[in-house]
């Protein structure tokens, strides 16, 4: 499936401008890239858990959504959207509605990796026809930069500050995309906003499947990561180039890298761009960057093996 930017720009924008997400936020870019690749002959219901995107796009009495939209709570986007999908199936079965619909949830990493994980796992297991997108900025940004299960080792956050007794976050992030893939759903992928073509291709595949699909998309947050706002896309790209955030897909159980950095950059290149890792460069934390490098190398090797490239 060749994707042309020229074609995508003709497609319907489901999220309008004028929403209140921060300038330089990666999340609305992720939403627009994914929804521009949605089938054009269908309607959408979009669901958010509580989070940045919800509070910034639905400030009553306004809405930024051209699609039907529902938010109900924080831990239940997957359960809520599967309720919508089931009602659609029920009403369609009874001949009460004729229009075709797709169902999409956009949750942050807090609402997906952590509090919303049970609802997500349940919905994946039940096989609802829905696309769940995690716009991943590696912490609870809406509540003010608290660590989540997606926050990388060593990162500062307001609940994992560094200090004489603390390196920052003391644990590695969990590998959610692999965990989702382990549900044996038709399509799961990891994407990043710096590669719009890759995102669009993945979104097209995700929308086309008959069951659940999942995209974990890197969407940096300059407020939480502490970098100048104009560098968002550049940092997403650096995460890819350092293999901190590889781009791959798992289609019907088959693992495949969809892009590979020409030359794998050291993690330091990524870490040094952000205030949240600044303390790792002090003499007392010598060796910690290597710890992170080792973790990234190990995950990368595992992924290469899964994709048959090792």
């Amino acid at each position, binding site marked *: 499936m060749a994707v042309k930017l020229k074609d995508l720009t003709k497609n319907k924008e489901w999220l309008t401008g004028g929403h209140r997400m921060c300038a330089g936020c990666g999340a609305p870019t992720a939403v627009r890239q994914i929804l521009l690749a949605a089938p054009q002959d269908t*309607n959408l*219901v979009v*669901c958010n858990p509580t989070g940045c995107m*919800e*509070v*910034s796009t*639905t*400030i*009553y*009495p306004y*809405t930024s*959504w*051209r*699609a*039907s*939209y*529902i*938010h*109900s*709570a924080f*831990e*239940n986007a997957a*359960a*809520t*959207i*599967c*309720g*919508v*999908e*089931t*009602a*659609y*199936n*029920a*009403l369609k*079965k*009874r001949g*009460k*509605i004729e*229009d075709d*619909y797709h169902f999409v949830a956009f949750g942050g990493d807090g609402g997906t990796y952590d509090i919303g994980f*049970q*609802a997500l*796992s*349940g*919905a994946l*297991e*039940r096989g609802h026809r829905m696309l769940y997108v995690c716009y991943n900025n590696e912490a609870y940004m809406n509540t003010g930069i608290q660590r989540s299960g997606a926050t990388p080792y060593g990162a500062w956050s307001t609940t994992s500050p560094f200090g004489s007794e603390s390196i920052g976050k003391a644990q590695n992030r969990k590998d959610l995309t692999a965990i989702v893939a382990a549900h044996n759903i038709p399509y799961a992928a990891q994407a990043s906003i710096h590669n719009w073509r890759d995102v669009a291709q993945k979104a097209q595949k995700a929308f086309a499947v008959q069951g659940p699909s999942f995209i974990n998309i890197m969407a940096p947050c300059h407020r939480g990561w502490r970098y100048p706002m104009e560098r968002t896309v550049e940092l997403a790209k650096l995460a890819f180039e350092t293999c901190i955030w590889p781009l791959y897909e798992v289609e019907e159980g088959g693992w495949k890298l969809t892009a590979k950095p020409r030359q794998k950059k050291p993690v330091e290149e990524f870490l040094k761009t952000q205030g949240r890792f600044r303390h790792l460069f002090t003499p007392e934390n010598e060796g910690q960057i290597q710890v992170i490098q080792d973790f990234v190398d190990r995950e990368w090797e595992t992924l290469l093996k899964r994709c048959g490239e090792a």
Partner: protein
Amino acid sequence: MQRTVAVVGTDAVAEAMRQINPDVVPAYPITPQTAIVETFSEMVADGKVESLLINVESEHSAMSAGIGAAAAGGRVMTATSSQGLALMWEMLYIASGLRLPIVLANVNRSLSAPINIHCDHSDSMGARDSGWIQLFSENGQEAYDNTLQAVRIAEHPEVKLPVMVLLDGFIISHSVDRMDFLEDEKAKKFVGEYVPENPLLDAKNPVTWGAFDGLYGHYFEFKRAQQQGMLNAPAVIKMVGEEYGKISGRPYGFFEEYQMEDAEFAVVALGSAAGTIREAVDNARCADMKVGMIKLRMYRPFPAAELVQALSRVKAVGIFDRSDTFAGAMGGPVFVEIRSAFYESAVKPLMSNYIYGLGGRDLSFGLIEKAFSELDDAARTGVVKEKVNYLGLREGEVE
């Protein structure tokens, strides 16, 4: 002709659900509610309903999926008990706040800890301020009748609030009782077609549900509007109860008055205990004790004025509570609310509270007679000896 059957309470609710034939039923198993969902699952499997089940992974997701399905435009029902209702707590408020007419059967069971699977009203009383209408049932027949009426009440345009039908765990849910079911056609006609308001699945009119209220919001006005639904509910509940009476021969109101005409003292109770108390009233009447009973059906909204009127004629009232508020010496929730209802009243009967049956402790005739005797004394002497009484408690075990 109505069908006369002998079934357990959970089957009575499942039968009402079959006749209602809702679009979506998201549910999670918990004792003693399980049998409702099991029976309904068989109905789905056998094609007796067109409903779609969602076998969710938790009660929190049951109510979340219910909210999604109801906002999408579907008629939604579910059932739970105890910890399940407690786990739904967050979503109960969202269902009522979004004005979604979901109907939930809650099979009353105690709340942990200690874990106990038997009946009391701690679970439903925990949800009394969640913005749901609450209808208590004395037996399987009432559980069936309340379930059919709940749909009409919830979906009424003047109400638009979710409704909880309450039936006592095991005592009703697992006891075989004689009851009458409406003919399918009559039940369907009574329930009617659901016409959702601003559904998500209207392609020409996309809508946003659950918007953020912002910093200078309208939250206060929304909540007052929600209260209006509750204020409008009694008239609708009365109208629906009367209409149901015409087709079934079983009319329903806010509460039932039993032997209240000449009663000198009375007791107030909810749920299955009312059946035992009614029998005890009959026995006491044989012994020339002028006792009456009020069986409260509509707990939310609370029929304060009507209860005051009905109870003003007696000298002493014993309020039976199957849960405690843990507010210190305030007593159980029904007691607190009835006392509050009497605040402006010039005529106030003496009032005492009987907390009974926690964790399924049996309410025997002997215990009811003890309460009657104390209330009789109070009515004669004008003195209440003990305001809050724990009926049937093994005092020696309490440290």
